[in-house]
């Protein structure tokens, strides 16, 4: 009972303003980073910035920071299912020697491993 009697948390507009400014700065940063040659880490940086932006939106715009624990659990479990989907499928593709004639980054390693073990 007591859990449901706290008054609704109202986020101050100043917080929203800080978030939109951060999001716009991070958008500029991701465009800037795309023009710097980081080799295979370009995508890592791009996804890290996107995830940071998404986290800000979820925590503040979507009030997840102030939501009940069970709502937060649903959000985390959603991310867990997404991680399962990505991890299990990509670990299959990445461990194939060839896929339609194109080699995956790890295929060199895999190919070596297959040669070693056969």
């Amino acid at each position, binding site marked *: 009972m007591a859990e449901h009697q706290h008054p609704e948390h109202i*986020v101050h507009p100043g917080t929203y303003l800080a978030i939109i400014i951060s999001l716009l700065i991070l958008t500029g940063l991701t465009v800037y980073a795309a023009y710097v040659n980081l080799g295979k880490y370009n995508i890592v940086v791009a996804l890290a910035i996107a995830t940071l932006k998404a986290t800000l939106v979820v925590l503040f*715009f979507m009030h997840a920071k102030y939501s009940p624990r069970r709502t937060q659990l649903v959000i985390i479990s959603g991310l867990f299912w997404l991680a399962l989907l990505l991890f299990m499928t990509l670990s299959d593709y990445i461990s194939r020697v060839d896929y339609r004639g194109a080699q995956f980054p790890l295929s060199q390693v895999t190919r070596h491993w297959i040669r070693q073990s056969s």
Partner: protein
Amino acid sequence: MHRTGDLYGQFKTLEQQKDSASLGMWIFLVTEVMFFGGIMLAYTVNRHAYFHAFAMGSNTLDLPLGGFNTAVLIASSFTMAMAVWSAQTGKKKLLSLFLALTILLGFVFFGVKYIEYAQKFHHHLVPGKSFDISYCVNNPSKCEDLKPEELAVEREEIAQALAADPDLNSHAQLYYSAYFGMTGLHALHMVIGAGLLLWLLRQSFAGRFTPQWNTPVDLVGLYWHFVDIVWIYLFPLLYLIDRHK
């Protein structure tokens, strides 16, 4: 969705009733995460397999327009958050204003997306029979919106990509299928969101939302922010592949 703000029998308090509604919305959003997650997974597999074609396709997108649209969507998320705040604090006129601004920004996004899509049709970059990644390079007179120096850069990029991937044209179609599929589904979500916002605006004009009862504003807000998050990922995935050459 209950539309009166009365306490329903299965709940102990209005607070609990509202928490349940928002929990349900989050469970729906988790299914949406899996929906877009599957599409992004397919994108990832193809991007790894045909990286040169994906990089070539990405470089033909209009980055200033895409960046502008990203800013527009972020701004619309801000006005949506402010709409929820107005509803929570009982500022009825501000609520209508922020809802209207959110809809307006949504339509700015559609307008820019229309310009981009139309450009792709003109440049023969829509997957299908007439798809030709080299169309503008070979027919500069038909692509007057591209400057000669831009076309010179593109000619060189295509030559390099062709050297790495002789089947560039068909693999570039995979990139453009991903582009139209992902941005198209995102735009469909925005159309639904804009419809929901118009529905909210009508009720807001009638003064239905109060600090005690504003659940629909809150839930549509969650949906709108989710659609913003999808774009936050689509922008770097589609527009920013291998831009540093």
